[in-house]
């Protein structure tokens, strides 16, 4: 079970509180985790990754195990601690004012 932490706006949109747990079949990558997340919560489609090209939206960041994974390849394996559920995969809205 993969643990995912969403930013407040997306928790409100998906009407969830706290962490989300998703099952991923096969290799645990950013793409497979996000696919599973969007499969469970279709309302999140287009809010994390661009519909047109599938890329991370510019002001969204992906963290795990105290590392910024935002620029990693989407099909690269996530850290073992994320795959085992020991650590969450964090989806973060970039800091900005306004």
């Amino acid at each position: 079970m993969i643990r995912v932490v969403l930013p407040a706006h997306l928790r409100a949109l998906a009407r969830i509180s706290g962490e989300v747990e998703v099952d991923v079949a096969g290799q645990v990558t950013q793409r497979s985790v996000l696919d599973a997340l969007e499969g469970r919560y279709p309302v999140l489609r287009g809010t994390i990754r661009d519909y047109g090209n599938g890329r991370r939206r510019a002001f969204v960041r992906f963290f795990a195990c105290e590392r910024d994974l935002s620029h990693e390849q989407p099909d690269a394996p996530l850290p073992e601690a994320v795959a085992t559920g020991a650590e969450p995969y964090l989806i973060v809205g970039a800091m900005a004012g306004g």
Partner: protein
Amino acid sequence: MSGVRVLVGTRKGAFVLSSDGRRERWDVSGPHFAGWEIYHVKGSPADPDRLYASQSNGWFGQVIQRSDDGGATWEPVGNNFGYEGATGTHQWYDGTPHPWEFARVWHLEPSLDDPDAVYAGVEDAGLFRSADGGQSWQELPALRCHPSGPSWQPGAGGMCLHTIILDPSSPGRMFAAISAAGAFRSDDSGQTWQPVNRGLRSEGIPDADAEVGHCVHRLAMHPARPNVLYMQKHWDVMRSDNSAESWHEVSGNLPTDFGFPIDVHAHEPDTVYVVPITSDSEHFPPEGKLRVYRSKTGGDDWEALTRGLPQEHCYVNVLRDAMAVDSLDSCGIYFGTTGGQVYASADAGDNWAPIVRDLPPVLSVEAQTLP
């Protein structure tokens, strides 16, 4: 007793303001979608409990919300706005070609007779339609693919399709306006479009009377006389008497003819409202006095409406989609400001009072007249 529901989009959420027909006491509901920019909320003329809202922000993009109970509860619907086919380019601010990129939905225009049908005007300029209550969206690409499209340039606020008007007397006829391309008309439900900017003169473009390139801020039509259209352009208030085939200026005695919204009285097709703004470099009312101007002659002769509006130290703006009218016997006029006030007049503009004073900056105001 009949009532009114005023739908307010702001920089930080949506608000629903409700009153009975006297329009003296108001219930305020919101913020809905707190923290998100709500560019527009509008109800279906065919079912006033069916509302659509455009919710977006820079982090998480576009969401469309739908209510089937007049704004009490909402459900997110489809948010995939993909341009049809090759997207091509328009001009960027520096004159270089720039690919069309979807940014947000500026305006939602529900069908006049089908609650499940709704149009969306988007940035970068394009027109979309949903036939299933907002679950899925299909572009009507002919407008974006007009031969003049590669020459269109964004205004300072982005290249937005901000106005959609459906002609109630001619099925298939619709008008759209884009900043800064101009006004367009379709007579076949959006399958083909023609620019309708003859008579406009814009000093901010190289060819002042070009076919396209004008920064049209807003169009308005009275449904009982759809061949007459009014326009607030970047500068100039304009009128057409022939379904936008040509325009003539009706700025008349306005203190300044720069502004954003324009609207028409619900029962008097010749009574028009604008909010003059000082200039393109000073987006606030002249002399710090917030004045709505009304013409009862279809333009040219304008009177200032000030009773109940701040007449000193007022430096707010009123954005293009932030004025609306109800259709009660005594026509109500509403507008919202970038200072977060929503003002209402229950007597066609003679007297004004704020419904709310401290909302986030107001992006849009729509009024629904309820049975």
